[in-house]
């Protein structure tokens, strides 16, 4: 057991702290896409290696060798200081790693730099009305016509489609192949004729999601990642990236500390909320769970650094446990405030910018999105515990 990262990493941690102290005030509170403040902060972070750290310089990144401990220190220090750690989003967190792994030279050169700098915004075209948890049954089709794919169909849950410049999209190109082998991964411009976007208002009353319709959308043939029919593998290569990013225990810890501060300052019947033993016990329960997830993450990190160490199912459970934990934590922030906890939006009594309600609902969305909690439990039981799959239902009328 050795929890020390070593003196060179403590120097590195100090550098990050110094940076945050010196430049932290330039950071945007929330990342409004394409705002000047967001983009200049993003560029400053890349320049210093605090985001896009391992992306090669030729594609606009910082070009450092991958170093999990450095990445962790950066994540910790940004979370601790509650300073915006730069842009995330599906283009940066999902498409860029995919292109680095499976993209052509031309695709890397064209897309990575503007994406990580925040100039080029992406949306993801995966889910369809009839293909949610069973994503591989998607039916949006792409048929080759000369030098173009012609795309027809509908996507749903396309976050930021209304702001996106481009989309990475799963389409069925081999209708006669088994469902997992008939899919391809296309990239195309959202200004292409034939794309219609309808906002889908979610329970937070924000319109972050959309329904996106494609009618004879013509996509140049070379704008495919991987080979024809390999789209499922391409997509799965990055779903792992998404799941890792969903339950960051450093952010959860920062949120817990905000909750503790709130409980010390807010009062009920003249007493600080923290003096109520029932609220306090709920807080302590959550703190125990946060602690367990932080140590679980240490073990995941350690198993990545020490190849002889078996992480067991430590990594597989992070999405399920992390999102449920955040939802419970945010819910406690509401409960302790009673009616004040209902305040939403423009209201003089709103606390912490109304974030308790927003995050409570947002994390319910994350419990469902990116592989529902139920799908996670299938994965844990089948891959982690080696339990058998549910037998396939045989459709009436043969097949």
């Amino acid at each position, binding site marked *: *057991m*050795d*929890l*020390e*990262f*070593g003196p060179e990493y403590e120097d590195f941690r100090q550098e990050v702290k110094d940076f945050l102290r010196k430049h932290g005030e330039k950071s945007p509170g929330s990342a409004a896409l394409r705002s000047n403040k967001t983009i200049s902060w993003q560029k400053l972070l890349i320049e210093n290696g605090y985001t896009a750290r391992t992306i090669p310089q030729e594609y606009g990144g910082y070009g450092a060798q991958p170093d999990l*401990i450095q990445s962790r220190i950066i994540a910790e220090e940004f979370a601790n200081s509650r300073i915006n750690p730069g842009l995330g989003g599906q283009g940066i967190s999902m498409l860029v790693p995919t292109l680095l792994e499976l993209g052509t030279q031309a695709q890397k050169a064209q897309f990575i730099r503007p994406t990580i700098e925040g100039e080029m915004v992406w949306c993801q075209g995966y889910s369809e009305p009839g293909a949610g948890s069973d994503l591989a049954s998607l039916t949006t089709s792409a048929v080759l016509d000369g030098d173009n794919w012609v795309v027809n169909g509908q996507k749903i849950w396309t976050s930021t489609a209304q702001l996106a410049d481009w989309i990475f999209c799963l389409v069925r190109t081999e209708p006669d192949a088994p469902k997992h082998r008939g899919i391809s991964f296309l990239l195309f411009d959202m200004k292409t004729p034939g794309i219609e976007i309808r906002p889908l208002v979610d329970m937070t009353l924000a319109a972050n999601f959309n329904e996106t319709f494609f009618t004879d959308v013509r996509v140049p043939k070379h704008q495919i990642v991987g080979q024809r029919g390999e789209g499922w593998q391409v997509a799965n290569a990055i779903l792992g990236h998404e799941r890792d990013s969903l339950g960051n225990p450093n952010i959860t810890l920062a949120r817990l500390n905000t909750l*503790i501060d709130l409980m*010390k300052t807010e009062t009920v019947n003249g007493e600080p909320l*923290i*003096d109520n*033993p029932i609220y*306090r*016990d709920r*807080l*302590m*329960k959550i*703190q*125990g*769970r946060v*602690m*367990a*997830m932080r*140590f*679980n993450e*240490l*073990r995941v*990190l*350690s*198993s990545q*650094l*020490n190849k002889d*160490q078996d992480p*067991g*199912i*430590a990594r597989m*459970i992070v999405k*399920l*446990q992390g999102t449920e934990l955040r939802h419970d934590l945010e819910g406690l922030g509401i409960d302790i405030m009673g009616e004040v906890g209902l305040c939403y939006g423009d209201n003089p009594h709103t606390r912490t910018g109304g974030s308790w309600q927003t995050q409570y609902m947002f994390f319910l969305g994350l419990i469902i999105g990116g592989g529902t909690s*139920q799908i*996670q*439990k*299938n994965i*844990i*039981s*089948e891959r*982690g*515990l*080696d*339990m*058998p*799959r*549910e*037998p396939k239902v045989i459709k009436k009328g043969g097949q």
Partner: protein
Amino acid sequence: MKFGFSEEQVLLQDNVNRYLRDNVPLDRVRTFADGGTDTDIWQGLADMGIPALLIPEDQGGIGLDALDAAIVAESLGYHVTPTPFLGSTVMAPTALCLSGGDHSELLEALATGNKRVGIAFGEAIARRNSASVTVTNTTLTGTSLFAFDADADFYLVADPNKHLFLVDTNAKGLQRRHLTTVDKTRRTVELSYDAVAAQCISEDPSVFEATLDIGRVILAADTLGAAQNMLDQAVAYAKQREQFGRPIASFQAVKHMCAEMAASLEPCRSMVWYAAHALANLPQEARLTACHTKAHLAEVGKFVAKTSTEVHGGMGFTDLLGLHYWFKRCGSNRQWLGAPELVREEAAALQGLT
């Protein structure tokens, strides 16, 4: 950086597991539950040096730390092993070594497994009803409830001021009464003191606290092992039991119960490791982590105990299968050395939140 076991620790774990698997099957636990002794089990563990684990080398021990003890405790919990490990190997040596006094004779006897020291701490953690210990000079009067290890040669007794005393089981005025509890893998006693001469070990509350902390982490490790066994049994049973023409393990309702057990238990593993490591290496975090680990494992252990029993259906409810030994082990670990609500309140107090 490595958050995990050394080669020696993996070896320790393998050896203890192998010994317990071969020598302490459920039938052996049942003979203890029916009134038999644990002497041969303890002797076997003593042959492997287990009782000497935490005792410094210059006192005849091996000088390992809490993480090594947690590794052993997890295995003991996995096999619901009856042993005096928690008192004699973990808590008593910790208190004796921290006390500053010379206890080399007793430590050497503990290291070989020849003597056993039980623990009577309840009255310093949460006094129940009229039970309490009063000390005049070094003479004890009153009652300690639920002292563990019914066969101890000495008891380490804490009074409500967190002062520690050592009492010889044969001391004049000491009465020891068996208290039947639901957990038949351990035996607890009530100690009554009628002006019993005792040896003061420490009047420094931090000695009591450090002893309590390690006891709590070790109980949490025991729960980790017991709950892991219940999960393993549930998965194995579900794969073998068929209903509606297929293994019940293929029904999502059953799979999800198992996944929920696994998902809540897996982070507990890291939590026990960290808490044990912190006891010896991260003094500023040790107490808080020990409290949270005790309370969190109590909750997860309770959940796994219930859920695993349900996965077994009617068989889970029978004595024939014996799953209830694990269920009850998790249950008593939950109450011993501080029930979860009380321990969480301690956690809050440690952060200045009370």
